[in-house]
């Protein structure tokens, strides 16, 4: 077990969630309190390693005394707060958020969990009929990763990872407004012309498969991508002395994708271009045979 500095002692705050009293440290978010109580709360734009942006609104809960619902992911607990996570209003808004998203975005590659929430809240995106979507061609402008913005729910995670929350490269931002808001480089230039350094940290945080390794994309196109046939091997990145932990996703004895665990004390899920994409040498079979 690593030694972790736990900070100064915090005051405990008593709140009630769905009628159950719980004591949590001051500064805890409602979401953390819910998780402590094993209440499964849907989230899309929230990630432990990123600053909460509270834009997807799928985690909203009802707080007594508040006119509107509040986002559990960023609202901090207050003494005697009374929270409802499964009231009619909460269920309605969560259902609508999922429906509105699914009616405009291709969410097929979202985690199974997301599809579970859709079922739980009875989301029927098709009831909006012929509706405007963000469908558009996939952007393939480099050999390392592709951007399929028809899958983008605009959760801001990639922008945060590219910016102050991890990489500080600022190659992408949110551009446009309203339904036309989208993730973009300046003047939509292709990635090689942008400030992108190909760390792939945006892929690491993308919850919808909008950002994807080129290797994964190609295999999906060819119909050969099969997660049930993949093995994950943990190792430490060989390139420098930082000690980033790598998870090598291997299918048919080839590395198809590289990730790092979110809770790893060195990486917090983030890597650099070498750790993320510099794995080809491992599988240079031609060299092996030449011996």
């Amino acid at each position: 077990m690593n030694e972790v500095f736990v900070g100064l002692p915090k005051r405990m705050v008593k709140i009630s969630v769905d009628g159950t009293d719980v004591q949590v440290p001051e500064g805890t978010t409602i979401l953390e309190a819910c998780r402590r109580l094993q209440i499964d709360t849907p989230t899309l734009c929230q990630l432990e390693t990123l600053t909460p942006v509270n834009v997807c609104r799928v985690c909203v809960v009802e707080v007594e005394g508040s006119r509107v619902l509040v986002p559990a992911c960023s609202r901090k607990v207050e003494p005697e707060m009374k929270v409802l996570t499964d009231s009619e209003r909460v269920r309605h808004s969560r259902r609508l958020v999922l429906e509105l998203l699914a009616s405009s975005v291709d969410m097929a590659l979202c985690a199974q969990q997301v599809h579970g929430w859709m079922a739980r809240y009875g989301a029927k995106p098709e009831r909006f009929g012929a509706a405007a979507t963000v469908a558009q061609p996939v952007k393939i402008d480099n050999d390392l990763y592709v951007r399929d913005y028809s899958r983008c729910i605009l959760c801001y995670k990639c922008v945060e990872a590219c910016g102050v929350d991890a990489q500080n490269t600022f190659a992408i931002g949110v551009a446009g407004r309203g339904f036309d808001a989208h993730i973009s480089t300046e003047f939509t230039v292709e990635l090689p012309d942008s400030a992108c350094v190909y760390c792939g940290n945006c892929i690491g945080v993308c919850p919808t498969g909008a950002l994807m390794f080129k290797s994964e994309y190609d295999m999906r196109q060819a119909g050969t991508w099969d997660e049930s046939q993949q093995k994950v091997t943990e190792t430490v990145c060989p390139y420098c002395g930082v000690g980033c932990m790598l998870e090598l996703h291997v299918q048919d004895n080839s590395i198809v994708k590289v990730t790092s665990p979110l809770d790893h004390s060195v990486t917090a899920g983030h890597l650099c271009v070498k750790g993320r994409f510099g794995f080809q040498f491992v599988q240079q079979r031609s060299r092996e045979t030449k011996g």
Partner: protein
Amino acid sequence: MDIRTTGGPPTADEIAAVDGILGSPESIWEGGGRSTQDDHLARGGHAARSQRPLLLPVLHAIQDRMGWVSRGALEYACRRLSIPPAEAYGVVSFYGRFALDERPELALHVCDDIACKGAGADDLCSALEKAFGPSGKTWHRSACLGLCDRSPAALVERAGVPEEREEHQVAPITLEAAQAILRGGRPEDQPRPQVVQRGTVRLLRRVGVVDPESIDSYRKAGGYAALRRALELGSEGVIREVTEAKLLGRGGAAFPTGRKWDAVAKATVRPHYLVCNADESEPGTFKDRVLMEADPFAVVEAMTIAAIATGCEQGYLYVRGEYPLARERIEHAIGEARAHGFLGADIEGAGTRFDIEVRRGAGAYICGEETALFNSIEGKRGEPRNKPPFPVQAGLFGKPTLVNNVETLVNVLDILGEGGAAFASIGTADSTGTRLFCVSGQVRVPGLYEVPMGTTLRALIELAGGLREDRTLRAVLLGGAAGSFVTESQLDVPLSFEGTRAIGATLGSGAVIVLDDTADLEQVLLRIARFFRDESCGQCVPCRVGTVRQEEALKRILSQRETSLREADVALLSDIAQAMRDASICGLGQTAASAIGSAVIQLKLVGP
């Protein structure tokens, strides 16, 4: 952070526009020429990045000079201000005023919003379309320009060097005038409206009476007496009077002003900032424009008093981009006030420091939302922040901030003049004072009217001359696009915060758009739906997608004659509305369904 620019060099004009705001660059690090020193000394870091709030002024300068923002110009601005181009692009593309494609120098914005629609704006637009091609090249369909008392309205912008540059409001505009402008003619400045209301007015008493460009004229009319009184009373005394007056905010949310001032005054974090919200963009609203155009010194004086009461040394007045005259008058008034010692390091010799910077909006309704406005001043996209924290705790630049609407602030002059208790005796018990109402649409005399709170809607419409002959009332849109429709049977509603709340309506921004039986209500509803679709910032899902789905469902309902299918879409509308109201981040999303929802219920227009 390295700034990588690949868009080619800016033109000399573009450089001149940017340098006009920032001065010449000192080194290659800021986009200037290379000197030997630059090879040894890097510039950047916090000092360079702290210039971010200058981004919008710089973008305005480029747009003013060139008529659009090219890649070279934007990247030069990025170098100067140490902003990543992708972020700056996100900002430019957020604001409606900035064009990212090359455009002619001349742009004619023609309002086709509710009030102007009723005054023939649609015919005007189709005629322009025939003669000059579709909107978006030389002429542009625009949301409300805040000239609803003289509809149909237009705004002319001509880019160029400062001497050649033009920005004019033309209202009412005729087809002939529009054609002449588009063929290169220069419109003449129009006589400004006077207050048409007879009888006692308070907030409007100097409008049309004092010379808006003369501080002496303002002082002769009693100006700056309230400031002197404020300096006598001191912070606590002023806040006591404002609290006793029971003044409620006039921007739309009706928050008790005294409580807000008290919270900022007591906030321990320093500095405190003052923001005057003059980004009046609610369709059908023009009260703040009239106050700023005709009585700018009152706004400046009231801001100074608020600053003294709450301990602010720096104030910002964020004025709507489409109000060139208001901006000019306010800037002039600030200069005069500074020259006369009413602003600056030592106000009236009392040792108090306060100054005001004017910030110009750039075509985004959402920036009227206070936290979006802060982001805009900070040089960011105008996306609202989640609350809490509230502005009084962490507002502009993360510091305690007092943000008040123009009309709210101007009320303070009377409160100090006559005392809070006397002010509270006007109006109703819970809604004190008078209120400005922007009456537009199909009444005989559209204009700005001031009545005591609690006056009935019927009396207000009578004051504006009533309906035209032989016409009957179809509905009144109270509170603008974010408000709701009321009908003939509700005309006796007292115009007070509690009175309108009782019938499920709102005073909102004071917009009163009267629609008679000639009005095409379906078109009005579609315009409202389009307005919110266009103006949603796009940050949160309920509003970003909800406003689009709302428009789609409304279109289906209006074209669908079969009742059972209409019912399904009406139910869908109400589902969307509830999620937008409950789960949106800010007031825009929370009210974006209100007018359309009230039309479904009140007018039974689309009901089963």
